[in-house]
């Protein structure tokens, strides 16, 4: 069992030695993640975990990767993608150029889902999809566009439930248990590290997706990130959050108008 005090020491080490600032992550979830790693990596005590982290930079890399959550799937919450497909994308159609930011894109499933939606709406040629994460390893995976074949059944079911009518397998080729998505989809993607804790706005976007990322932050960090999104959105730009995430408890709420039953808002002031 990790005590609050131990967690403080560990977060302080991560920041002082390596510059990773997890101090404003949601504490309950962070504590669980640290405990989980402590038992997965079979540390007999917290002190030994701390020693390893302070002395072994390779382990640190693994630790940070595992501390952040990278559970994702394509077309996750099909009802959300149905609204993107049927309502949001139509609002972007008239624009000469469409810029989209996937903040906290993890291994890229959401970015590829979006590229498929845009391609089917015949808009991909004039779109750019910026995909960022603090974790370089997951970004590298996303950039390559390889996914496990075993996930394609679920992804394909989600795709159909989101209103997709093509043969989902036409978007990839399978090799030995892995699939590679068509390069025409990834041509318009730009992958880059970006840390929502410390980095600032880098462009103006028509749509920002940040789904199930803010849940890992405390209220003060959520507030910072929501301001960052506000500053990074064009007038009437869209912000999409996870199914149980909300602007209700944030100071930016009056600057947005909820767009649909799904968690999508538009910047209005």
């Amino acid at each position: 069992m990790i005590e609050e005090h131990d967690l403080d020491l560990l977060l302080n080490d991560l920041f002082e030695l390596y510059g990773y600032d997890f101090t404003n992550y949601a504490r309950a979830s962070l504590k669980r993640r640290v405990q989980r790693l402590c038992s997965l990596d079979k540390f007999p005590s917290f002190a030994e975990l701390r020693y390893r982290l302070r002395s072994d930079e390779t382990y640190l890399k693994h630790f940070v990767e595992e501390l952040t959550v990278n559970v994702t799937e394509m077309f996750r919450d099909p009802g959300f993608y149905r609204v993107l497909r049927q309502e949001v994308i139509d609002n972007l159609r008239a624009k000469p150029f469409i810029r989209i930011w996937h903040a906290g894109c993890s291994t890229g499933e959401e970015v590829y889902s979006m590229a498929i939606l845009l391609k089917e709406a015949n808009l991909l040629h004039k779109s750019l999809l910026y995909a960022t994460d603090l974790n370089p390893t997951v970004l590298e995976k996303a950039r390559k566009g390889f996914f496990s074949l075993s996930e394609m059944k679920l992804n394909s079911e989600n795709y159909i439930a989101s209103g997709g009518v093509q043969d989902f397998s036409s978007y990839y080729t399978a090799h030995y248990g892995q699939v590679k998505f068509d390069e025409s989809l990834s041509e318009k993607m730009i992958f880059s590290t970006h840390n929502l804790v410390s980095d600032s706005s880098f462009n103006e976007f028509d749509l920002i997706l940040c789904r199930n990322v803010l849940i890992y932050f405390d209220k003060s960090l959520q507030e910072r990130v929501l301001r960052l999104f506000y500053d990074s959105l064009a007038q009437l730009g869209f912000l999409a959050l996870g199914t149980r995430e909300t602007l209700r408890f944030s100071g930016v709420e009056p600057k947005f108008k909820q767009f649909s039953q799904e968690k999508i808002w538009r910047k209005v002031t």
Partner: protein
Amino acid sequence: MEKSNVSHSCKAVIIGGSAGSIEVLLKILPALPEPLTYTLIIVLHRKHTAESALADLLTSKSRLVIHEVEDKEPLLPGNIYLAPADYHLLIEHSLVFSLDASEKVNYSRPSLDVSFESAADVFGPSLVGILLSGANADGTLGLKAIKRAGGLIIAQKPETARVAYMPQQAIQEAGVDYVLDIFELARLLNLLNNQGD
């Protein structure tokens, strides 16, 4: 089980269940006292597609509104909260909920163990944990954590559960304080109210 036996001041009650637990809740929620002096948190294994219909169903059987939790929602005494589908439900010391979409635990998201452990961490001896019907061992470790933190732990009487496995596990492994049938559970939730008087 008289009032003196549940003498510690109860700030929160957390109820977990799986298969066969909704029918129990539909019986005990209408019997809840009003106003509630504690926070009631319900965590159920549920289908991802069920969306918020479950909150509506439970609300229809209770005079109190059941809030399906959104991230960073504050926990207020007197309110009933339901863990949303496909997220783990955690509680911060600042008394707000945090959601977590990480790996399933005991093949479940939400996992009862995860929520029970988090609630134990925050409420310590002021917490009562109740485990209902279900076909999975989820919840037993969580009840143990509640007990370690000084809270009271209770299992539904297996003979009254549609699926006895989950409460049975807790009885064998966690050393529950009480094993109660549905009527007694409803009575307990009333006894826990208004400890101040």
